[in-house]
């Protein structure tokens, strides 16, 4: 639901790094999103196509790298991957869990084009 604000942040970061590298155009943006971040890819793409229109990011392709949620059971030490909703430890049933990964939400890299130096 908050994808518009999120997409604005994506654009701001991409444009800043593009400027720093004298880009003429940004062609690709690589995002890494953990399974526990409540972000809908299609919705970001939808807003992206609108808000990037007047910028050098226009037409850039968004790539979403989804990372699984990994949890550690603090009771028995088992590590497991969360597929759907919250579950207790599959090994011992404990609810004392620690999130190891899955909350990531960052821009990994961008691909840019530069004008050839004359």
């Amino acid at each position, binding site marked *: 639901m908050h994808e518009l604000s999120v997409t604005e942040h994506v654009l701001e970061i991409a444009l800043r790094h593009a400027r720093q590298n004298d880009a003429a155009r940004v062609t690709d943006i690589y995002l890494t999103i953990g399974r526990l971040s409540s972000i809908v890819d299609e919705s970001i793409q939808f807003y992206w196509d609108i808000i990037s229109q007047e910028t050098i990011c226009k037409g850039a392709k968004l790539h979403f790298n989804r990372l699984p949620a990994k949890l550690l059971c603090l009771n028995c030490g088992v590590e497991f991957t969360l597929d759907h909703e919250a579950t207790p430890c599959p090994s011992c049933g404990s609810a004392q869990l620690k999130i190891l990964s899955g909350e990531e939400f960052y821009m990994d890299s961008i*691909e840019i084009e530069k004008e050839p130096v004359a």
Partner: protein
Amino acid sequence: MTARRVTVVENILNANDQVAVLNRSRLDEAGVLSINLMASPGAGKTSFILQTIRALAPRLRIGVVEGDTAPVTIDADKVIAAGMPAVQINTGGDCHLDAVMLKNGLEQMPLDGLDLLIVENVGNLVCPAAFKLGTHLNILVASIPEGDDKPYKYPAIYRGLDVLIINKTDLLPYVPFNMSYFQQGVELLNPGVVTFPVSCRTGEGIQAWADWLLHKSEEMKK
């Protein structure tokens, strides 16, 4: 044209988080304990704030920042009527408060005269969980009529909580709500989270919450 890959590795909400850090130091400097109060619409956030003011005034001076999607001052007016300063923030339709909005709110709030600041977030169980504000405590007001499945359906907001309020306990005899199923879900997401069952209508449970909060506020002053 020459193509090239540029490494970025930057948190998407980095800009928001940096402003949240500024908000936190502003609040720390003023010695004001601050709460990000979240809930679904109609869970009783404003009633809970008013009950908290009633229980703690005049021992604590409490300011309230009201986040609303529409430019209505219904909630802020109630706080002012209760004798405490309130600042209204309109999100312009946005589904959550962010750190910049709170920063603007803090600039209008007489922080030096306060012990406690309550930020009433927009009624929503999804988006407020993603945006740090810089406040000290994340608190959720859950309520009985919402149903006992909410921790399972909105895990992100339950994961980040410091305190859980379960409001409208006076309705337990009238609506199907399996408390142990609800608490089992909470336990999976946030084991041992501090929980206060209350009824803002009857006032039941408010005193225990107010005592806890008063203690927290005194710790902050040390």
